[in-house]
């Protein structure tokens, strides 16, 4: 304890000093998976001192934008691709093509090599089986099932204006049905929605803790809540799951680009890719296989087969317009 307090005081008194071999990585990976990946990275590159800061996508984006005048980080790691393309963030990046980049399909990386995605996540439904049984509801298998009046007041969804996960759900439904039919469908769904929660993970947590029967959320949240022991199922909507990429990138202002590049190279090594397969349902590189608990949760071996083929560029370009229309319809 004394040592801790002392080191705290020392850190308080001394401004952070940058040594060669130090890099700072900002990540939006979930806290436990980020810790597991970091452990591996440190073993693979013992000479680099990797400082990692983990915040949720929105908080991290706000911080990166605020720090824009003097970025404190060298690498962005596992950060929503639809947010990294925000010009305020994209402007701070420097193109870099790490070794092995060609193994990533072109749809999962930036044409100018400003970012590349090795992992991603998909939109799924979290269903509380205890609550469903109590209310006599069948477990839904698709978005369409959720428009059944029996689900009225039992479904929660993220608000697309504040949550990236919420936005990919809305935008994927609009992309797959076409805008006219898409909005008509969302109108129907709206009648059953109890709340549009302002975070992408909370709807699944709300379903897990039995506040509501169904929470639209994303895959990792569902798998982890099942793992925690909640009476819950994950349902990949039959229409196809909207999905989001988690991008890595080099920050142009980095003072230690050599080590930053080495770190980015490492994110494509077979060792790293294997680790992704332990934690993530979408990995853009071939390698390991899907862990048993993912299959138990209901994912097929080839997760690509259940994904809606997302047009990421269009999703990014239409964002403001879709959010404005969504708010006009459902929030006033």
């Amino acid at each position, binding site marked *: 304890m004394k040592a801790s307090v002392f080191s705290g005081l020392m850190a308080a008194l001394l401004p952070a000093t940058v040594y060669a071999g130090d890099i700072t990585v900002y990540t939006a990976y979930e806290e436990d998976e980020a810790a597991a990946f970091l452990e591996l990275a440190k073993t693979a590159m013992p000479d680099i001192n990797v400082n990692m800061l983990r915040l*949720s996508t929105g908080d991290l984006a706000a911080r990166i934008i605020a720090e824009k005048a003097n970025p404190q980080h060298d690498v962005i790691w596992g950060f929503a691709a639809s947010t990294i393309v925000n010009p305020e963030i994209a402007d701070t990046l420097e193109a870099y093509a790490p070794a092995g980049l060609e193994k990533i399909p072109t749809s999962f990386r930036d044409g100018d090599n400003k970012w590349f995605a090795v992992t991603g996540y998909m939109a799924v439904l979290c269903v509380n089986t205890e609550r469903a049984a109590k209310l006599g509801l069948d477990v839904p298998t698709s978005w369409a099932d959720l428009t059944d009046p029996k689900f009225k007041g039992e479904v929660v969804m993220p608000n697309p204006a504040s949550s990236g996960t919420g936005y990919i759900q809305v935008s994927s439904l609009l992309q797959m049905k076409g805008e006219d039919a898409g909005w008509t469908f969302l109108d129907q769904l709206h009648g059953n929605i109890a709340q549009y929660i302002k975070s992408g993970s909370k709807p699944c947590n709300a379903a897990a803790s039995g506040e509501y029967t169904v929470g639209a959320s994303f895959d990792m949240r569902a798998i982890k809540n099942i793992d925690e022991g909640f009476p819950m199922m994950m349902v990949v909507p039959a229409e196809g799951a909207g999905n989001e990429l988690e991008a890595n990138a080099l920050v142009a202002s980095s003072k230690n680009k050599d080590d930053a590049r080495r770190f980015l190279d490492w994110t494509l090594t077979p060792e790293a890719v294997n680790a992704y397969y332990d934690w993530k349902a979408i990995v853009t590189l071939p390698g390991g296989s899907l862990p048993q608990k993912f299959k138990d949760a209901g994912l097929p071996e080839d997760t690509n087969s259940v994904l809606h083929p997302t047009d990421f560029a269009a999703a990014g370009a239409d964002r403001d317009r879709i959010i404005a229309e969504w708010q006009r319809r459902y929030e006033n």
Partner: protein
Amino acid sequence: MTDQTVSMSSRLRQFRLSDKSFATAVSVGILVLMVIFLVIPAVSILLRSFVGDSGWGLENYTETLNSGRIRELVGNSLTVSAITAALAVSLAYVYAYSIQRTNVVFKSFLRIVVMTPLFAPSLVQAQGLIFLFGRNGAFNRFFGFDFDLYGFWGIVLANTLYTFPYAFLILSAALAAADARLYEGAVVMGAKPMRIFQAITLPSTRYGIAAACFVSFSLSITDFGNAIVIGGDFNVLATEIYNKVIGQGKFGLGAVIGVLLLAPAVISKLLERRIARGQHALITDGSKPLVIGINRSRDLAYGIYAYVVAGMFLAVPLIVLLASFVRLWPYNLSFTLKHYSFDVQNGAQPLWNSIVVALATALFGVVLVTIAAIVVQKFRTPLRGPISFLAILPTSIPGMVLGLGYVLAFNNPANPLNMLYGTFPLIVLLYIYYNHAQGFLITTTSLKQISSTFDEASTMLGGSQLRTLFKVTLPILWPTLVGVAVFFFMRAMVSLSAVIFLITPQTQVAAVSVLQLSDRGANNQAAAFSVCIMLIVLAMLLLARSVLWLAGAKNITLIR
């Protein structure tokens, strides 16, 4: 001013002069600090409201104000905050009255219990409320009720609990001071209790009530935590900032709403003089402390009220404590200690970091707000207007906005204080200025009740203003100041929304660990981490109490 003082003024000119330069130096110093650590950060982000897609201009304002949405949001925010302020201030007034003016039992317990919303990060408070009153909460699940917490009344409930402690601290300080002579006189003249309350008690606490209303209203209108977790689809201005800044990375549009939220501070500043005009000093040279008379039925009635309120406040920490010891709330209630082996990044280290940060915040915070309060109340300097406005301004700035403002201001290489960025001292300064208004208002409320006749007497006896301060004012004020220090300590242990933008991998604080655990759905472990924070805060309260005890201040209470 009496003739006597005027005639003596020539003899005292020497003292006055040195007093004057001292007062000016202190006022300038405190103002400069406020400008650096409050105004510049706030302006850095609020200026963004004028930066639109096509450069500088009013584009963001026209976009925001022309949407029909903004009117609804303003209406929602005003309604929620007004009802919250009315509820919190009236409940807290009666509660403070029970403690200060009746003989209810176990006052120390009652004082501490209503502070519990300040003991844990607000997201844990909100989670605790869901554990209790959620659709699958303890009441609905185990007792067969059918509450639906989410929405308008959910925010009102959560915000009332959240702002009650602040209102209580201010009102309790206001009710603590009383001159028994007034009450004795009223009784002799045959006034009924209700008449005495209206004629003496209420007017003498007018400033406290106004300050408590302002704090409660402002905290409620700027808080987005409760609105996000419990508000459901009920949108308010603060959640709109969250949408724009965190959801969409649009600082400009968020900043416009940040500017709108400054209105309560400006309006209250305009009203302040009117309200303060009727406030007179309560403790004067001839004061006699109030002795609470014996009245069984009164004590019983207030006792029942106080314990019902205390029960409501105790429920939340108790359910959090319970959740920290069960495997999986509410499905598997078997006992376990596993949530106390923290597997979050850096383990328990952030707790130690937070203790150091909180101690520094308490020490420097109490010094800075005391100086600010003394400058405003006791010094005749033209700077008191700006200082008193800036002192209360932080309650009108959402934590997120101030935190981002700190990044913009201090991460700038052109800023000579750039070296503070990424260090604990900057986090300490953020905590001090973020919580400045409440500390300032508690101190001011106490200070206002100390009559200026002390100063005049001291001056006539040849004491300088400085001497009067140390020999007269501070000895009367110091119990309040210890309470303010403990308040800063608590805030620094739990505040979250501002600090997430300043932490680095090396400077993580406890509240952030709770956020990370809660983010990944580990509610039980988040509860366990919060229990540790609550215990530290409680230990601090007890420690401060024992120090007072050992110093011989047996009948002085930490929370008034």
